[in-house]
């Protein structure tokens, strides 16, 4: 079985984002980056599948700027066998379709039986790339998976719907699934595995110039209205005293 997992490196969302005037994406200087949370579930599920099927190969792929190689290294340390970096220093200028198209171009002749992606990225959150990829490859695809099982000749997954309801869906291979939070408990790479990962192959493919996107970014800004929250700041005792007074005033405590 040949397994592919597609991941993205994203900025830590607890960062303070700065958008330079006229820019369509934030300034990356001084930010820290990590694997998109949803993709960690995708990697974990792919590694578990590979471990249960000894004859299989697990490839991890990312499309991103040079910094994204770090995400691949972590995925290798979690258990992937080799990595492909579709390098594009201007990756943030791509729309979802352009990302999916570039990945499809790189993997279409490699005969993957199963592809795992996150259901969306934490930064852009479009939730498009996974299913765009399966459609471009002409294979089965299903989104938002919180349960995964290999069956005779295919897979059966649980899709999460609103309010905790789940739909059980069966599909044949080759197939792509987009992974939702909670699908499994992603492992932490161990030190020996981090060392071993350093020897695993990491291939860098330089992507050519981008074609015009289908969706053009015109701007990026702070949300118009920041709500009416009253901030309570100061030293701990002051903050506690203020909040206690508020709770008393609202008759929430005696």
């Amino acid at each position, binding site marked *: 079985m040949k397994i592919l997992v597609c991941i993205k490196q994203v900025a830590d969302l607890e960062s303070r984002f700065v958008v330079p005037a006229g820019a369509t994406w934030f300034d990356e200087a001084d930010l820290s980056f990590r694997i998109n949370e949803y993709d960690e579930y995708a990697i974990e599920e792919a590694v578990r599948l590979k471990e249960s099927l000894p004859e299989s190969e697990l490839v991890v792929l990312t499309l991103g700027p040079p910094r994204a190689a770090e995400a691949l290294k972590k995925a290798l340390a979690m258990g992937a066998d080799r990595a492909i970096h579709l390098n594009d220093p201007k990756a943030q200028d791509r729309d979802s*379709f352009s990302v999916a198209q570039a990945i499809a171009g790189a993997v279409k002749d490699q005969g993957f039986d199963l592809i795992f992606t996150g259901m969306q990225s934490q930064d852009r959150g479009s939730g498009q790339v996974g299913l765009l990829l399966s459609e471009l490859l002409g294979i089965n695809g299903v989104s938002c998976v919180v349960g995964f099982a290999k069956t005779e000749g295919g897979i059966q997954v649980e899709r999460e719907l609103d309010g905790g309801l789940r739909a059980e869906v069966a599909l044949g291979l080759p197939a792509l699934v987009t992974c939702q939070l909670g699908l499994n408990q992603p492992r932490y790479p161990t030190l020996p595995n981090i060392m071993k990962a350093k020897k695993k192959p990491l291939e860098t493919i330089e992507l050519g110039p981008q074609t015009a996107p289908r969706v053009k970014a015109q701007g990026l800004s702070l949300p118009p209205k920041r709500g009416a929250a009253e901030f309570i700041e100061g030293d701990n005792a002051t903050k506690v005293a203020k909040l206690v007074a508020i709770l008393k005033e609202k008759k929430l405590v005696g």
Partner: protein
Amino acid sequence: MKAMLIGEVVGAKLNPSFAELLGFAGRLGAEVVGLVMGDTSDRPSFAGKLVLAAGPEYAPQAHKAMVQELVAAEKPDLVVLVHSAYGWDLAPRLAVALSAPQISEVKEVTDGVYQVGVCNGKLVRQLAPNPGLTILTLQAGAFAPAQESGSPTVENKTLPSLPGPGLVGYKSKPKTGVDLSKAERIVSVGRGIGKKENIELARKLAAVLKAELGSSRPVVDAGWIDPSHQVGSTGTTVAPKLYLACGISGAVQHLAGMKKSELIIAVNKDKEAPIGEVARYFVVADLMEFLPALTEALQ
């Protein structure tokens, strides 16, 4: 301007969010063609045309083929779905089949430029699709539902049967644990609590406030708390008198489950966390220091 609105059917029921699609089309002054796929006797009321396609309610290849057929016949400018498990699953398939730009989770539109939230709602992106047909999914709750009236002209069709992913059945979460939906006070913990053991700090505070303990999703996913505590679009919807959000950033799926609470107080060390958009008070603090001190002061 013509908009094709695609409804979501789950368990033979049409999701009432169809009214939000109608509200959106109304705002644009668009002519409406509705499409409902699946076996349901629910009929939305609006002025326009409604196509009812009988067949399975989740069969993405068949649904895609039906939309393609209808787009060819009706030539809409927009194909619009709600950004839900149904909408985000069908929309990219349509984008490929129809060679059309797709914009996800739209929360506002002005003059053909769409606003979408990024980075957990901390920033807003303005996006313009190429000219021609555009596929949109709308953020749940972003557009006011239309006060539906009128009765559409109905056309009946049958979904083709095509190979591809197929629905086996539904499973609901076991109804055990707490029922937060009736709680009057909730102290809710998010990932900012750091680790499982620290939940005790919130539990003690909840005890003195006579509150139930709620949580965001990552706390459940990490196995720190029982799933019945989860608040949000895929958990419980709550509207207590007091919702104290501790270390919760305020993702849209979380807000969807608690923004109707009477008094929302956030405790967070990041002053820019989007929970500030719904909170009345926002305590800028580290939970590890603040929660024990508050509990002690209230005892």
